[in-house]
């Protein structure tokens, strides 16, 4: 049932501190996982490891059977990442940025992909402006487009709504809905229950480096999730 993404026994240790202590879960194609957790629970570390930017101390990750360590190139081709940073070059135009990233993924027609995405995020009229001149909201829209450049089958979002203006947030929600309809798998990490619950099909709680709760969205309601969250986060404080 969960054959698309498998994460097995993930550990991450640094500075003598265990950020992740054995995280295991699986996602099926089209799953939309919202992962909640307090600061320092290991959310960003987990996303960092899945996005290949952080190397785990031990553990295994596979997407569609491609192992992270054995076939990193195939693994990376499946990924799209939206982070706090825009990952865009300020001195290049919107179009140049997208074409550059699209070409890195060896797409057949990077130009066409870039133009299509610019239309989607409604930046097409500004395609020849330098990103450095863009407003915050425009950059955020463009960075969403950047993450979608390779049509990723797994999209990772780290606190995507924090710092977004209304337009960008609406656009992101729309994009996520679109991805969901295209059967793309999404992992969103957040500490905001409202945003996280919107389009989720699965919800999880990460506390002190462990995945303490994981359930299908339709089997939990908001109150239950809140109770679970408080239970684990407070339990964490005492331990």
């Amino acid at each position: 049932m969960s054959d698309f993404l498998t994460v097995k026994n993930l550990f991450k240790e640094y500075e003598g501190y265990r950020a992740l202590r054995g995280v295991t879960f699986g996602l099926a194609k089209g799953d939309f996982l919202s992962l909640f957790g307090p600061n320092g629970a290991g959310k960003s570390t987990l996303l960092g490891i899945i996005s290949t930017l952080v190397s785990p101390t031990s553990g295994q990750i596979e997407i569609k059977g491609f192992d992270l360590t054995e076939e990193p190139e195939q693994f990376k081709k499946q990924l799209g990442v939206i982070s706090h940073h825009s990952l865009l070059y300020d001195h290049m135009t919107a179009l140049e940025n997208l074409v550059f990233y699209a070409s890195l993924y060896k797409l057949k027609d990077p130009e066409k992909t870039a133009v299509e995405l610019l239309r989607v995020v409604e930046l097409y009229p500004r395609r020849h402006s330098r990103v450095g001149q863009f407003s915050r909201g425009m950059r955020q829209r463009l960075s969403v487009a950047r993450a979608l450049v390779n049509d990723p089958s797994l999209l990772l979002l780290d606190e995507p709504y924090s710092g977004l203006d209304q337009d960008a947030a609406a656009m992101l929600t729309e994009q996520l809905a679109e991805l969901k309809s295209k059967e793309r798998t999404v992992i969103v990490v957040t500490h905001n229950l409202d945003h996280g619950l919107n389009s989720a099909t699965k919800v999880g709680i990460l506390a002190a480096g462990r995945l303490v709760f994981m359930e299908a969205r339709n089997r939990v309601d908001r109150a239950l999730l809140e109770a679970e969250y408080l239970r684990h986060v407070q339990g964490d404080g005492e331990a």
Partner: protein
Amino acid sequence: MSGFWLILQKDLYAEFRRPESVIGMVFFGFLLLVILNLAIPLGSEISPETGAGILWVTITVSSILGLSRTMSRERENRCMDGLLLSPVSVEALFAAKMAVNVVLVLLAECSIIPLFFILYGDGFFTSLPMLVLVVVLANVGFAAIGTLFSAITAGTSRNEALLPLLFYPLVIPLISITVKVTSMIFQGAAVADYSSWLYVMIAYGCIFTGLGFLLLDHVVGE
């Protein structure tokens, strides 16, 4: 197109549009040529060794401005993450960044070296092909170490200020060999007299390029 060409093209295009690195290097190099003139007694001819020393002190000191920018370019908005997320290999990234360094330093040298001959006398100008060869070999060595350590300093709190402190001790041998060979070229010595040093320069370039390929992966990993 491969990742190597894409990154090379992107960086050179950025430099073409706003030639920060090259103009910085040329301007600083010009200044150094003028300042180093202070070390020469009034009205005396300089020896080929002194000339070669002045030329290479100028080039190595000014090129640090360009070398330190290669990786810090990718720091704004964490573009390095974008490159690492893409399926481009770290080896291609190293090769591209090193090529960018070789090209940019070479461009700066195209202005600095003629300026040197104008200011210090064209009597040293004996063999253009050999001079070009030495310059290219030296650039490869500088670029290999410069690229690797630029990636390291981009990950530290002191950033670009740290690069010269790590870079110069490691390239001292290359600088001293280059100065020796250049002074022999300035004297008009036969190629056979210094060819063994050219081989050392080639070996230096190969060794540190190889090390860069092996080690960059670890450096940009986290």
